[in-house]
């Protein structure tokens, strides 16, 4: 299978994640959209690694990304919990505490 298929799928997933990030108001969905984008990137990296098997750079980057994702989600969920305690909502357009 040519690498193009993987890349098109990755771009598709990234676009869906990006649009989801921009238009959805639920913070949890927003986080999931971010996950989708990151996984699209992971898929692209693995695809490159399959196309050039002599170097493991793609796989290494994918591992790093997974670790970063895990950390990001942990922090993101903690923020969402804290936000819910203060505002009783998980809608991101109501979370304007950073204003002023």
């Amino acid at each position, binding site marked *: 299978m040519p690498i193009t298929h993987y890349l098109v799928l990755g771009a598709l997933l990234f676009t869906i994640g990006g649009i989801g990030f*921009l*238009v959805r108001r639920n913070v949890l969905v927003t986080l999931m959209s971010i996950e989708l984008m990151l996984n699209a990137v992971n898929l692209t990296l693995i695809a490159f690694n399959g196309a050039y098997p002599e170097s493991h750079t793609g796989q290494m980057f994918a591992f790093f990304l997974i670790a970063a994702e895990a950390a990001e989600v942990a922090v993101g969920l903690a923020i969402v919990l804290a936000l819910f305690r203060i505002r009783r909502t998980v809608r*991101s*357009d109501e979370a*304007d505490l*950073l*204003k002023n």
Partner: protein
Amino acid sequence: MKLLESLFPTNDFSLIAVILGMPLIGAFVNGIWGRRLGKPAVRLMALAAVGTSFIASLIAFLILDHAVQAAGHGHQRLYFTAWEWMHTNGGRAGSNVVIDARFSIDALNGVMMLIVTGVGFLIHLYASSYMENDPGFHKFFAYLNLFIFSMLVLILGDNLPVLFVGWEGVGLCSYLLIGFWYDHMPNAAAGKKAFIANRIGDFGLICAMFLLVHYTGALDWTGIQNNASILADNPADAYQIHVWPLGGGTYQGFFKFLQPAEPFTISAATAVGLALLLGCAGKSAQIPLYVWLPDAMAGPTPVSALIHAATMVTAGIYLVCRLSFVFVLSPFVMTVVLCVGAATALLAATIALVQTDIKKVLAYSTVSQLGFMFMGVGAGAFTAGFFHVLTHAFFKACLFLGAGSVIHAMHARIHDDDKAQDMRNMGGLKKYMPYTYWTFLVSTLAIAGCPLLSGFFSKDEILFRAFVNHATSPVAAKLAARHISVWQQPEWIGKAVYAVGVLTAAMTAFYMFRCFFMTFHGSFRGWAIGRGSLLSHPDHGDHAAASHAGHGDHDHGDHDEHGDHDDHGHHHEDLTVPGPAPHESPLPMTAPLIILATLAAVAGILNPAPFTHMLPLEHWLEPVFEDAVKVGVKVAENAEHLEYGLMVPGVLAFVVGLGLAWAVYFKAEGKPAKRWAEAAPGLHRAAYNKWYVDEFYEATVLSAVDALAETAAAFDQWFVDGILAKLSSLIVAALGTVLRTLQTGVVHVYAAAMVVGFVVISWFFVAPHAQASTESTPNGDYVVTAAPGMGYTYRWDADGNGEPDKPDFSEQSSVKVHLDPGKDVKVRLEVTNAFGRQATVEIPLSRPQAQNTMELGQN
């Protein structure tokens, strides 16, 4: 004596450090820890500091005396160099100017030092009781000690800059002490007035210092003295100063008379002398800068005594004496000093005649007596002037402290300052305050010039000298040979000043006895005195603490009682209700009075000029002044015979003044004075209001300054605040308002902005940018360098033929082109980036035609 001299070797006389250091330590300790130390410790510290300083002064004086005896006749100085301060190489006179923190004691400041520490100690002792109930007790003594320290620096300094340190120090301390009760507006204003008037004088002193170091190349006493003659001798034209009094501009039409055809030419000696005189007039309250001194009585009474009598105001006289050898070089300056002194003496005496505030009478009396001292030194009788400083220190300190004692008693019922100090509310205090009465009487007699008391001798000597002495220029003959004329003092000035002096002396006797009779004789006018209240008094010790707690002197007691200063104005008691009798002050206050009165009575024996030729003070001071007197003062030939004759008007002045005061204020209880005041109400009011001099200053100098200040304030308000500050803040605020709308706090807006930014930056990297910069050298080489970019490769068309130089893109990022003059070429650059996109730019290069053949030839 041997022991003392072995302890304090005269070649490095470290005892001066003790004299100076003790008050400084006292000020430091009381200033820093005073609040926690408690009153007894503060009192001990302050008194011990000045007391030790006085004892050290006595020892130093003995050693100095011994040194003088050992050296025979001559000017002895004991030096102490604290540290090296400033050195410069090569003054105008070719000398090295050395300014060290150096102190010295000689005959003149040795006496002065004893007065300052001795009288200062007595005033400290007095104040320790007088200020008993003041919440700022420790602060007061810290200031007082600092004052003594500054004064000692002033008189013991061996050069002008060190003197100036002390000079400013006493100015500062007087400001702090006059405005001691700073929450009372007039007091704070008085402190400010003293400070500003003194600053004007200090300007003169600074100018004098610059002139002296410029012309004589020295600032220490010996150095100035050695080179002083150069100031008047005019060895070169550079030693003459040309003055256009109203500026060198050109005045047109009517104002032409303002512009003299020629500048006035004065000698350096005159310039230095006038500048010094301005400084001395500021410190010693002479016309036109005397206005601060009467207001200075707003401070606590011991401060008035200290400032008026013993220390600060005599600094000006001291400086004239110290630099007598400079003053005598210019007869003009001597005449000005003489006339300023006489005018001040007379003017202040006329004001003192009608004042009703006891401290104001004394304050104007001080100004008047300072005028006498200036008359003395202006006549070239420096010893006489200085002798009056000495005697005045005793009797004026005693008078002020006596007045303080009276005010202290008046505060038993009257808490308003103005009323408590008003002599119209006093009277008959003789019965209640015997110690104060007798000491006040002795001092009054002394200041009025009663024969055989100290004031008589000093004043008589001044008057006599003013009559017979005549200031002459020591170099007139020399300069006449070079066709330079010198202003000479007219003969009649001395006589006129003598007449003014006698008139002033009569007025002095009158107003002093007026004050005395109004305060101590007649019937008590303050309040009704209850039956038996004299007996019901507890003894003094308890008295001050118990029934008197809270109104020691001033309104400071009211701080304790009400905590609110404004309150004291409403704190009037009904004075018709019988109250306790006024009472004598406690021992720490009466003891200094007795000592000072004794000194005021007997100090005359130091220089009993008319009666004997044993003149200890004159003999003692002779080495200091002999050079100055020798060169610049001519004594009338028949002076010896005139001595007794000239004494008669002086004694008559005393008798007339006393007699008149007795007739008016004792016999008739002041009724004739009222009639006179009613007969000439305008004159009386003018004198009472100090001839409106303050108002005159207000209208002229101060209003001009105020107008300037208001303009500056308006400028600040409208231009600086209104335009510069408001406008710029408005711009920033507007910008902020715009930017604030971007800050929604909503995550999605930020995310969208991020995406937009990401797209823009991506586009920047994806699109290729063909840019190049050109450098040229004069010989026609042009180097075109393409701007770098990510993954860029370049293809050049350097020769301008439309075809690329090489068919492929390469890493070559610059080309070099040579052009002949007048030629031009279009270099084409093609860029392709990592995404394979291309961009093209054309850079036109042209070389201008050569201007001349030389350049061509070079090419």
